[in-house]
């Protein structure tokens, strides 16, 4: 997981830092944190591999940020972070191109690890067994 470049976006600075430390603990070194969607969007030229995105933020909502990220670069894996008991909208965001979602709570940390592993698996699969359609298309 060490080589993944990760963006974290959440308007709760406390939770944001907890997540960052957790990612460090599981070996992710390239982590940037943003307290709102706009800051994150302004840094997209850094080409993150994964963006963890809080669903309910005050200024720019998670879904808006998701759409903007996807428009900018559809290959970024966006994982929505939703509050407990607030899953339905997050599930809906899957249809808008989010890769997965995580529910805030006691187990969110282990779930993050699982999702990252899944992303790595998918990336490897895409790279090896199935050359990306896009690569073929724009070659």
């Amino acid at each position, binding site marked *: 997981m*060490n080589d993944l470049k990760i963006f974290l976006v959440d*308007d*709760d*600075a*406390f*939770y944001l*830092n*907890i997540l960052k*430390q*957790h990612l*460090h*603990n599981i*070996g992710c070194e390239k982590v940037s944190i943003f307290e709102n969607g706009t800051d994150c969007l302004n840094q997209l030229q850094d080409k993150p591999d994964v963006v963890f995105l809080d669903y309910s933020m005050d200024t720019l909502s998670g879904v808006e940020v998701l*759409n903007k990220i*996807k*428009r900018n*670069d*559809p*290959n970024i*894996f966006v994982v929505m972070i939703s*509050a407990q008991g607030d899953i339905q909208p997050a599930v809906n965001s*899957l*249809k808008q*191109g*989010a*890769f997965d979602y995580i529910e*805030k709570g*006691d187990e969110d940390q282990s779930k993050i690890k699982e999702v990252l592993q*899944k992303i790595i*698996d*998918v990336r490897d*699969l*895409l790279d090896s067994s*199935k050359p*990306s*359609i*896009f690569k*073929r*298309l*724009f070659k």
Partner: protein
Amino acid sequence: MTKNVDNTFKLLLPFHIIINEDCKIESFGISIENLFPSLKLGDDFCSNFNIDGIGQTEDVINLKSLINKPVILSFNDYDHIHFAGLIEFLQQENKFIFIGNPHLNARDIIIEKTIKEIDFNKLTSIKGLLEVFKNKQITNLEFKELLVKVSQHKKLNKELEKALKETQRASDSKEAFLANMSHEIRTPLNGIIGMIRKLRKENPTITQQNYIDNALRACKHLLSLINNILDFSKIKAGELNLEKIDFNLEDEIDDVKKILISQASDKELIFEIEIDPKVENALVGDPSRIRQILINITGNAIKFTEKGYIKITCKPIETSTQFQTVEIKIKDTGIGMSEKYLARIFNKFQQEDDTSSRRHQGTGLGMTITKELIDLMNGTISITSEKGTGTEVTVTISFPIGNPDNIEILDTNINTSILEGKSILIVEDNEMNRYVAINTLEPYNVNITEAQNGERAVEILKNQTFDIILMDLQMPIMGGERATEIIRNELKIETPIIALTANAFIKELEKCIAVGMNNYIIKPFEEIHFLKIIIKELTKLTPQDSIIQLYDLNRLNQMANGNVNFVPDMLKLFLNLVPKSIEIINVSSKNNDLETIRKTAHKIKPSINNLGIVSLKDDILLLEKWDEQNHSMEELENALKKVNAVIHQVVDAISMKEKISQ
């Protein structure tokens, strides 16, 4: 493309749009037709659709220049999930270029992979579809048949679900059986071990001492067998959780040697340890399970070696700032294993052959458990062996690097003075087990009262108070759980209750705690462990510890993982953010702005939880979920008052006591 194929496409891929090289629409699915009734074949795609936001702006711009064959655009995961195989086929045949959401596509790969892994029949129906497509002669009748196939597949799904449920049920009853068996065997074993221990203190003759030692060894062996079976069923039930604590690997390996050295010297084997000084002083993991793994492997090595040596070497193979991957090798000069046996060594109940299983006792579960434990730690195990020469087992596990200061030093000197003059109620139906417990406690001048069952205990407690209650769980007339409920809820007695149980399953232990017990001791117990738990509960009663902790930095400290700035940084954030949020809640409450209260309470919940402010857990939840139908205004005000007061105290305490970033 024939008309029939086109019609089928309409239904099969309800959300698809096919465009030709001029970006003119050639075909679209039934759902698109419903969504855009005015859409006609031949329309210009780019002027009709703005697919901005799905991430394909660039694609569309480039379409005209890039494509020389038809393109399918798909906007819904429905199409992908159900027809990934079909789409792939069309791509292979170079008939279409498929454009969709790449990540949805990626999800499909997972789905497909899973399907393949469980050898599920899903793809047969898709294959059937493809065959028909190849011949390009699809009729309406054939299409109906295909639909039937797909619906049969759904039926298959249901049957599979049913079968799965039944398997689950069978597995549950197996677990219940194992839990019961474990209880039934452990209870008498507790008595036997206790009695033998007692007998040993009675100045036996040398011959008698010899008999006693042999009996005790046999008991311990029996106990380890039961524990092995239990471990195995726990792993299978997903019940086995690994601890994450700081430990010193060298100490653990030394312990393994201490435990096994007598077995090795009985056979005159040399037992060597070699540890690379570059192995970190503190790693984070489950030391008792690591010891178990090493004892299993090394124990086997000793068991199957008649002369020569056993050697454990340990060295780091990869070290980063946060992690260290350690390789532990256990080498012996034993009888070795055939390749055939090596292949199935990790299967349960395996020993090399019947004659050797006569010679070497064991359940044959050891290596299975070892493998499962290593898997749980995301590690690897490999074995090289040559018949007659020896075996080398290599275990590789990656651990987070810990903090040497956090390593708990096992204190074998316990302060028993606190027991003096304490009154203890022992509730236990089995006479021998009562006797064992009383015998263990007697030397420390305690007053013991006995009760044969829960009902009797409740009667006694109505007239008498105790310092501590030891409570068996399974008793006739009234069991321990029910008795605890009555003691806590009806008699309102808060005396610490320690469960005495032969049931080592976590679910049962959780139940004990849930009904109001404070701790548990698993039978058969080691004397020292038994005393330790009782002393721990008695120590908690002393005044300085009885105040509920305002906050608890354990969770953050654990997370810090060697990052010294982490906790001070988090505390700074807490002091900056939470009081502000509380102020927002206060203002909103004055303005009757319930939505903001809910939202803000919701937002600070992670901070409250991570700082271990347990006393506010329920109040924050109430603020978060407050609604006029289910709660009163008074509840809201009380919760607000409490949150304000506690946060105030926490902020004061943190500012005074803790190190905070500037």
